[in-house]
């Protein structure tokens, strides 16, 4: 299975990403093992899936953090999808999941993100990065996580803006 970057390390990916169902989300069957299900499936089958500890949920870029807000305390993993790397909604969604809704589990960026977005995504609270493009060299990409280590803005990684820290 393809590896990913998590907390700055290159690690095995133990989770399987489930595609959006073509049929009814409430009747589609969920395999066993660690599965990241689409939001629609989670919402339709929440009652059954809640008891499982190996279910994560992924949000597409047109799905919003508040749709999963009531579940963030129990979910071990939430993923935010980049259908295209230019679609920057995941940055806001990640920030809201962390800052507003208090999600503390693995927050994973998936899809067509690019290496040069890693630092900003990390600042928005994303701690795992799974590129859909298998050609991305993770040992190179990981370097972009720390393109910056000083910032003007408050964000998830540094809750104080520079103007509150400036000597």
């Amino acid at each position: 299975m393809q590896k990913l970057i998590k907390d700055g390390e290159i690690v095995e990916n133990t989770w399987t990403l489930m595609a959006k169902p073509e049929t009814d989300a409430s009747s589609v069957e969920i395999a066993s093992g660690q599965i990241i299900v689409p939001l629609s499936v989670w919402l339709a089958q929440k009652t059954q899936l809640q008891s499982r500890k190996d279910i994560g949920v992924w949000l597409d870029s047109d799905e919003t953090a508040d749709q999963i807000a009531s579940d963030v305390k129990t979910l071990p993993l939430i993923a935010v999808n980049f259908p295209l790397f230019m679609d920057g909604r995941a940055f806001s969604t990640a920030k809201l999941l962390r800052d507003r809704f208090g999600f503390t589990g693995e927050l994973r960026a998936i899809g067509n993100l690019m290496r040069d977005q890693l630092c900003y995504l990390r600042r928005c609270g994303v701690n795992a990065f799974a590129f859909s493009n298998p050609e991305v060299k993770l040992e190179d990409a990981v370097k972009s996580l720390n393109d910056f280590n000083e910032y003007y803005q408050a964000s998830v990684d540094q809750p104080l803006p520079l103007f509150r820290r400036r000597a």
Partner: protein
Amino acid sequence: MYVYDDYDHKILRQRVAQFRDQTDRFLAGDLPPEQFLPLRLQNGLYVQRLAPMLRINVPYGMLNSTQLRRLAHIARHYDKGYAHVSTRQNIQFNWPDLTEVPDILAELAEVQMHGTQSSGNCIRNTTSDQFAGVAEDEIIDPRPYCEIIRQWSSFHPEFAFLPRKFKIAVTGSTQDRAAVQVHDIGLQIVVTDSGQIGFKVYVGGGLGRTPVIGSVIREFLPEEDLLSYLEAILRIYNLQGRRDNKYKARIKILVRALTPEVFAQQVEAEWQYLKDGNNKLLQAEIDRAKSFFTAPAYEKFDDQQVQAAVNAQAKESVAFTKWLQRNVRNHKIAGYAAVTLSLKPTGVAPGDVTDTQLEKIADLADQYSFGEARTTHEQNIVLADVKKLDLFSLWQECKSAGFATPNIGTITDMICCPGGDFCSLANAKSIPIAEAIQRQFDDMDYVYDLGDIDLNISGCMNACGHHHVGHIGILGVDKSGKEFYQVQLGGSASNDASLGVVLGPSFGAEDMPEVIQKLVNVFVENRTDEELFIDTYRRIGVAPFKERVYAKAN
């Protein structure tokens, strides 16, 4: 002006290193062109018709002489010996070599300059009033707030991949010289009766394909809430702005779709979560920002006395008198004046300036204006703090350097985008049209008699030349491979902001000087004593202009 500390330098150095690595990876084939595209844009680098174009931010138009000399060096060493002042107060180089751009950015970083977010779908350079800090009608100097916004918006992790570009302008005067109503966010500084400083917030204005005057979504935003409120607006836009069609992706489309009222409610709701958070500005930070924009060491003058001396000089020279009338404006400090150096002599592309001219501006700034200069969105240069007693000698130096064309605010001081000569987006050329009109209006006495006329030219509907808000606006269009020009009348970017109305069918390039002449003739025949072009137009309407221009020859 603002001076970088170690933090600012460190952050900018990290950016330069990041872009150098990205450029290296692109050149080595490790970074695909489609991924390099947004990265280079966010560092100011376009790929244009003939060569790359590099856009350097001039934060709210402020430059010092050291920066001007560095820009001159870059024009000479890396470019073809000239630069261009853009309609958003920035400096553009038209001929840099892609492989040298990281070196250019490193050289600029040494003098506290950069191309960060001067392009791309992100928060762009914040613009302001070129007479900030010296205007007689100023309520509060907007520049400290611009600097606070610059720092907050630079390398913002959440808002670097917005649906589309995002422009913020701030004004602190009664007369709006920053065109705040045609920006994505326009901030008008307001002071309450009790002395509290804050902002009237406009949102969703803009030019481009769908020109819109901004809507007020908040009458008064206290100054300490500036950043948290901007964050609320940007987050709603980032999450809800359209991404399916780039021509419908600006915030103005979202504001219109939701209605300004609903958009305002959503911003207020989001802001409730943010307003008491860490982004709430501290008075110490506002004071720190303001400490960089204090008054320079002005000398004390008796204004009447120095004015009498200037008047005596003016009596001796008609040319100096004209320059005083058009290119010099009042200053809030007795004995001082603000001087505009015209970058619009006939025959030079509007806003173009050579390397030696940049150095000359630096020298003039050092000698006459405390070492600082400003770029204007009308594509000129301002020396904001000139002693009236120095005006005559400054004028003589401007004459020999080519800056003394006494046409500021007139029909020949036009705003003009680079157009089809340079820009790959353009449908038509704009610079030759500007020149042809300047040649048509070569009688300066006649031009003075016409008074203030804003003539704005864009080479395509992206409207970099702000044609929608020109009293006379010209838009280049392409008709089956041939260049034509559409004329609009009645636009304004000022307090009474309005969008121009299309006159009718477009004209060929060769007809343009005569068409503009006819429009001006209608104005001259109908004006009352005190009226400017825009006043007459608003009184008599478009019909008489239309009739004259489209009249069949007998």
